């Protein structure tokens, strides 16, 4: 464990792109084996927390989507250029049987594996933003990482935040259903006089929706306060840790917040060369969603950085 921490620290200044390249090469070499995301993170000294978000942000797909696509691309390549049986190709691609390979293959290439093998066409892979594809000789050319560096009217920023004491109500389930937690929190806050002039509405997102199933996602609806509050029933208190936060402003409906996360983890952190600290991502809501058009909603998505 201590060696891991040491190496993570030494590599902090190492280029994110270099390290992600290591991860991607590792994936290509290990397509025959099951892959655990935590092991992948370790390949290039990424801390395991937030690694999914960094991968998705830089590569444009989740780890599992990426691995799955590369296995299917390799299957396509082998169908075209080898005599290997379709069943063997299916097993190598980590499919339990020919039927499941055929289904997955059909979805990606529009034809069955055997039809693909018969057709006298050159090989063509699906178009992806990263332009990373299976290459039998490990020669991948240039990768295109991350979103556009130009983040338009909302440049990212780093802000030092103090410890922020909050009163909160936890919601477990899909983000779209967190309204109940907010109602409970705000009714309590009104009764207790906590909606003061400086109160901020924050959301603590403990889970990555690309990894955690919707029904298990933990989200804390929070209001900042300096008053002393006794936790009771659903109402809890906690302190959001202070420190330097990397912040990306999002303008638009809450449903499209994922774009700001991709920007933050896939472009902002790599550009800064800073590592995210363990812990929840913090969302700050600037408007009242009841009286604001969804496209005018403004939200800061942020993460504590080391």
């Amino acid at each position, binding site marked *: 464990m201590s060696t891991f921490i040491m190496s993570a620290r030494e590599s902090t200044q190492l280029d994110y792109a270099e390290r992600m390249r290591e991860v991607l090469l590792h994936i290509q070499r290990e397509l025959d084996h099951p892959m655990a995301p935590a092991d992948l993170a370790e390949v290039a000294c990424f801390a395991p927390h937030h690694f999914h978000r960094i991968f998705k942000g830089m590569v444009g797909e989740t780890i599992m989507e990426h691995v799955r696509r590369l296995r299917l691309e390799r299957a396509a390549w082998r169908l075209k250029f080898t005599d290997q049986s379709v069943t063997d190709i299916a097993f190598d691609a980590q499919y339990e049987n020919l039927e499941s390979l055929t289904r997955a293959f059909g979805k990606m290439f529009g034809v069955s594996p055997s039809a693909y093998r018969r057709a006298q066409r050159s090989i063509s892979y699906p178009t992806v933003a990263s332009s990373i594809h299976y290459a039998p000789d490990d020669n991948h050319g240039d990768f295109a990482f991350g979103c556009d560096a130009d983040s338009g009217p909302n440049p990212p920023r780093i802000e030092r935040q103090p410890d922020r004491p909050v009163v909160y109500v936890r919601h477990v389930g899909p983000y*779209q*259903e*967190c*309204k109940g937690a*907010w*109602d409970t929190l*705000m*009714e309590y*806050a*009104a*009764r*207790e*006089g*906590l*909606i*003061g*002039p*400086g*109160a901020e509405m924050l959301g603590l997102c403990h889970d990555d929706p690309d990894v955690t199933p919707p029904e298990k996602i933990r989200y804390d609806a929070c209001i900042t*306060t*300096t*008053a002393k509050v006794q936790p009771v029933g659903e109402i809890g208190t906690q302190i959001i840790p202070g420190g330097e936060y990397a912040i990306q402003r999002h303008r638009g409906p*809450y449903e499209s917040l994922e774009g700001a996360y991709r920007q933050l983890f896939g472009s902002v952190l790599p550009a800064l060369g800073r590592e995210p600290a363990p812990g929840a991502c913090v969302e700050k809501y*600037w*408007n*009242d*969603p*009841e*009286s604001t058009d969804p496209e005018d909603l*403004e939200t800061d998505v942020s993460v504590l950085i080391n």
Partner: protein
Amino acid sequence: MSTPAASKVDLFKEHKSEYAQKKTPTFVEVGKAQYLAIDGEGAPGGEAFQAAIGAMYAMAYTIKMTSKKNGRDYVVCKLEGIWGADGDFDSSAPESCRWTLMIRTPEFIRSEELKGAAEKIAAKNDCPEAAHVELRSLREGKCVQILHVGPYEEEGPSINAMRAFCEREGVAFAGAHHEIYLSDPRRVEPAKLKTILRYPVY
């Protein structure tokens, strides 16, 4: 955090015609309306003004959430401001101006609810201004109105356009300069700020 229930009162939408947003002057008829209101004096953006805004939002949301808990939910309306008292508001020099900040509020909200909210807020926050927020009714009647897009300091041409329109129509300004803030000046760049400007006329 999601779509409002169908039964929720939304005065801004219910009285859409009173909040007409045209870039050329137009007449609107504004009926009697109840507002949370707080009076003050000094530069917009100054200390007194900021404290008053903080108190208004604290009161507006404390009262709304209390009412919602009691089964009567509504949407908190946009912030409004009335500047000067006699129609001679000078948009380029508002520092010495007296103002009233307002948020339109349903008729079923009573002053007892304001008193309760102000006490709770004062007990947990440094916010003496909450006690100065009061209920006020206003019937502006016939008004001239325009949507001003840009910095507050550059309202002059929009006001002149309304004045010229009134002269052509044979009426004149008959009340204080009224602004309805559609944008949040803390986050929207000045050139894009949207503000409804309104004057009662006769």
